[in-house]
């Protein structure tokens, strides 16, 4: 076990708003992220927290689906970088409200993740979105930035006792550095202790499998669920209970 759950007060205060209203607000929250409206995201998230709605629901039925919608629109060419960045910013506002609450409910971290963009690649919009999402879900992140050589990844994993090594790349000319990094991890003898996760526009599931990665993320929004899965953590852990 990576952490111990805090004891929860057994007296449950019933939500003051009904289920239907909660569902409606979650849909509104989803739309607010999709429409990149920071103010509304803040108001709705705070409101839902105040009403003691399950944090897992706020995350996975509100904030994340809104972001996923925009990521898909970006993939289809309906949205461009400004829209993607602006929705990440709105998402971050919501997640920043949830993060301290999630942290309050646990003693350790969900897991420690070393993350970076691979060598000779300087693109970090996707990686930064993944960080926002993982932190929002209760992971501790060690961000190595961009243009990260394999040795630096391995050293950081070792130094921080990370459970996951996550890599991103935006270029077909740099994605092979993921393979080099995983090979170095194997050579260092730490591969049994550390799981690897890869993603980025040119990365495919076949490539991820061929280089021996433990998980492939098609889009940033799937990163938290994948990270939990490879660490054997229940999907709703730490977020599924109210105050």
């Amino acid at each position, binding site marked *: 076990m990576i952490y111990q759950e805090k004891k929860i007060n057994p007296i449950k205060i019933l939500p003051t708003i009904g289920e239907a209203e909660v569902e409606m607000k979650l849909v509104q929250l989803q739309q607010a992220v999709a429409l990149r409206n920071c103010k509304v995201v803040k108001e709705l998230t705070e409101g839902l927290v105040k009403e003691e709605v399950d944090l897992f629901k706020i995350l996975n039925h509100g904030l994340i689906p809104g972001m996923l919608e925009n990521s898909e629109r970006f993939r289809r060419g309906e949205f461009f970088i400004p829209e993607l*960045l602006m929705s990440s910013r709105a998402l971050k506002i919501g997640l920043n409200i949830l993060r301290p609450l999630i942290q309050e409910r646990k003693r350790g971290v969900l897991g420690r993740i070393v993350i970076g963009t691979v060598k000779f690649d300087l693109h970090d919009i996707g990686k930064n979105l993944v960080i926002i999402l993982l932190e929002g879900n209760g992971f501790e992140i060690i961000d190595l930035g961009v243009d990260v050589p394999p040795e630096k990844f391995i050293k950081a994993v070792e130094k921080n006792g990370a459970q996951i090594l996550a890599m991103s790349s935006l270029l077909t000319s740099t994605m092979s550095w993921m393979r080099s990094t995983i090979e170095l991890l194997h050579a260092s003898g730490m591969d049994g202790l550390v799981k690897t996760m890869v993603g980025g526009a040119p990365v495919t599931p076949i490539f991820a499998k061929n280089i021996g990665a433990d998980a492939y993320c098609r889009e940033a929004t799937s990163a938290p669920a994948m990270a939990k899965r490879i660490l054997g953590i229940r999907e709703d852990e730490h977020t599924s209970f109210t105050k």
Partner: protein
Amino acid sequence: MKTPLFKKSHDLKLLVLACAVMEKEIRQCQNGRVEFKFFDYGLHRTPENMSKAIQVEIDRVNEEEYDGIILGYGLCSNGIVGVHSHRHRLIVPRAHDCITLFLGSPESYKSQSVKHPGTYYLTPGWIEKGETPLSKYGSYAKSYGEETARWVLHEEMKHYTRIAVIDTGVYPLEPYQKIAIQNAKFLGISYEELKGSPYFFKELVAGPWEKDFLIIEKGYSIQQDMFFDL
């Protein structure tokens, strides 16, 4: 002796499907044996749409019309992955993207990206299409206001350290130099000029498509791993 790629050397008729960003450079190499069709440069942003657009065009071509189809594209973020032809042999340059084609060799692209990974490459074609940081800023500001535009551009460009203009020898460089320098100043990063090469464009049109090209036989499709050793 090597078997030639095409049995007949006379009356060989080829179709070039290429990105509009290199239209001038490719047209310059016209030898009367090829026909061209250029696609919107914006396809590079949505790789899934790029392969679909190219595939539709390939599927439209009759067997007797041409002896082969040449793609004026690099791997372009997987934008040509899956592309295939049942009726023609496909000829594809082995390059990650058009920057290799403009520079003239995978080696020169590699050496540039090792020395300066944070390079924003510009060519006259790219500048004409409005794909410069300054014109992006302008269009962001138009949609979202200056403050947001500045923030977006900063997020997008913060790791870039150099603007490099590739002189492809087809355009008079001066007006493009000016624009590129303005962009470098705007971002506060360095500016450099790189000498381009017509090698890939000449070879695309006239062959013999040897070491830097992939020959995809009928019924086979282009795969990502065909480019991995570059």
